């Protein structure tokens, strides 16, 4: 059984979400900041009338901030409770992955990355990290 994964880049590393989780991909949007919100929350975005929380995925995964000056891309994803938007450096291709190519995240990965990765997928071109979306949105459990 193969599944399609929507990929994106952070710090030149390739990450992915299953396409069924992804609603749409947007260019950089105007955000309203939320004082007092967890640090990884960048603000609120108006997606055609729905208000969507936008999370800085770099910060969430414990990566250094983006200094390239390039505008970030929003990956709007569907969670059990609603829509969220993830800020990523740039969007990649949709790839097919086989179930055999998936492995649990290796223990050497640093936290919080290890808890937020569902699987590591061995692609011919490199390793694709598949995000555990629900975990990544539990912002209180892992204060960023």
């Amino acid at each position: 059984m193969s599944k399609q994964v929507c990929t994106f880049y952070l710090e030149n590393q390739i990450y992915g979400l299953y396409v069924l989780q992804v609603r749409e991909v947007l260019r950089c949007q105007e955000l309203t900041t939320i004082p007092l919100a967890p640090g990884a929350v960048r603000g609120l975005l108006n997606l055609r009338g729905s208000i969507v929380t936008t999370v800085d995925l770099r910060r969430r995964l414990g990566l250094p901030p983006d200094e390239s000056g390039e505008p970030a891309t929003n990956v709007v994803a569907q969670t059990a409770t609603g829509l969220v938007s993830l800020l990523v450096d740039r969007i990649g291709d949709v790839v097919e992955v086989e179930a055999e190519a998936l492995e649990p995240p290796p223990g050497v990965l640093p936290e919080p990355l290890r808890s937020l990765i569902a699987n590591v997928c061995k692609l011919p071109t490199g390793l694709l990290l598949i995000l555990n979306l629900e975990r990544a949105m539990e912002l209180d459990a892992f204060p960023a």
Partner: protein
Amino acid sequence: MSRPLTQHELQQQLVRELVVESMEYLDQFDQDLLAIENKSNDEETLHRIFRAIHTIKGSSGCLGLRELERMAHAGENLLSWHRDRAMTPGADTVRALFRFCDALRGLIHQLSNGPEAAQSLKLTPEHQQILADLNSLHQALKQEQLGGFQDSDAGSFGLFADEPAPPAAPSAVPAPPVASDEPAPKPAVETSVASDTAIRVAVSQLDVLMDLVGELVLTRNQILGHTSALLDPGMAKSAQRLNLITSQLQEKVMKTRMQAVGHVWNKFPRVVRDLSKELGKPVALVMEGSDTEIDRTLLEAIKDPLTHIVRNSLDHGIESPERRRAAQKSPRGEIKLRAFHDGGQVVIEVSDDGGGIDRERVLRKAIERGLVSPDQASAMPDSEVYGLIFSPGFSTAEAVTNISGRGVGMDVVKSNVERIGGAVVVESEPGRSTTVRLKIPLTLAIIPALLILAGGNRYAISQASLVELVRIDEEKAATAIESIRGCPLYRLRGQLLPLLYLREQLGLSPDGSGGALLLLVLEAEGRQFGMIVDDILDTEEIVVKPLGQELKNLSVYAGATILGDGRVALILDVLGMARRAGLLEDGCKKRATEDGFAAAADTEVLLAHIGSNRQVAVHLDSVARLEQIPVDRIEWSGNSEVVQYRNSILPLIAVGSVLGVPPSGDTRESGKIPVVVYSHEGAQYGLVVDRIVDIVRCAAAINPCANRPGILGSAVVAKRVTDFLDVPALVSVSGVVSYKSNSWGLF
């Protein structure tokens, strides 16, 4: 749907419709049956309940639900017998029909559980018993009539022969209608079963419609902005029309979601009837304003809390008839439901004329549970004490009943109400009444809001919590704000108003610009406070949208909205903001007039003097008698003075010494002391005062005082500052023992 329904699917759909429809019929059935029981029925009532059951029987028969049909048939038989003779069912029959209705409801409820449930619908022995009861009632009625005229319709209604009835038990003979001494109130709610002019629409459909209209409103705002720049008269005209139509559409769509509170109240007469029978407390239910409309989702959300409050009022609030008699009240209690609009909110009150909340008992329990320390307890204002009953796991019920007393519930009530942006307050007058007041926003969807600016971001504040706006000029700004130990305060017309700086609360850098200060006076939980903002922008009707699950812990926001320019603005939650800033704790000034409507309770009070010159007041309702007691009749019991009074022992409480007022010294010289005999919860106490002055009507607002146990508050009565005595508190402070006795006669 593109393909035709299969037989099975069609059956499923029909069953679903049967469930919805039957439930509606049964609700109506309940109300009509109640009307019959209260003798407030008319000719139509009997026909209506007959038709309801007849329809349910018919539909269940068509769908092959034999068991349901059998059940309905038994009820129908009994009803048709009454209907044909235009005879009002007697008390026994009504009781049996209530059980029948519940059984039917239970069976129909099972149907909603899916296709298997419809197949496996079985009558339990309990159901069989109800069936048998109905049949034997029917038989007994027939027997009774047989002498008079020939029964022409034995089993004539329906398709099959009647169940063989067991021999009629003597108890099954219908009792003559029970004579009741008081005329029963007519149920205030009259609803009609859905007629041809209404259709059923899924709520989710309306939600989508609402969202789309919200979007349309925003687009309209943008178009209006663009056209004003274009200076094209044709375009401007179209834009104007678009504007008008959009507003009307928005209003109408909002209307579709409104429902009268009567929809939820309808089931209360039945709840109250059953409970009052069970508890042996006769209670009249009065409903006012049942046509007040409120957003459907909100109504749904307050359904359970309201039911809980009503049950609670009956169980804890209303005393037993004996106690009520002892307190000179009518043995029949009253629970009153009231709904009305109040400044963009809907207020729903549940009040009872019961014993009120016992402050000391609540505090004792709270101290036991470690919710407050004994020191805090004595200083707590009543409203906060009453608020304690909403703490999780809190119950003052001495015995756990199956109705209430398990300490679950009131906290759920509070959290449910607050979740929808409402508030709940309790007021109580010891010995007289308790009122639980829910304040519910009219609609969750669209609220009038004030837009303000802080740190470059716009925020919205619901106008419901806004009291006034104050501008403090530049030259006064530096000195106008005073502070006590770092807490900023502002003197607003002589009253100290605690303040918070919005920037500071939101963790933004302070505003260094100087200049005039803009102050919003806000109200939360009956207390006012000021909020300093950078700028006040405009008022706007905003569409409230919830924040994502990942931000649920931010209690300072009530949601977010999309402004005319498409940007998102956060909506500040005034209550959450005040809590965060610690402004709702002790020592904050409570508004004297508690929302305006509770203020002027016109009551009769007894005025007395204690010490050399202090005037105190006691509510007259609790005063049993005034006595002059000869000093030589005073005896001692334990540590307190008592007198023999009407074959019992009356403990005396020297009000002056309990309140720490120096005695004037001349009272006992005269050989007699004036005593106010006060009854509370079946016990009587003698309040020793120095002089009884007068009985007056007073409509003055009592200013609650925080830390004087034994005093409710003070007000100006008869041109003098008067302390209102909190007698239950006085009793517990004085430490006297009550002598409950059965010998108290009614004077």
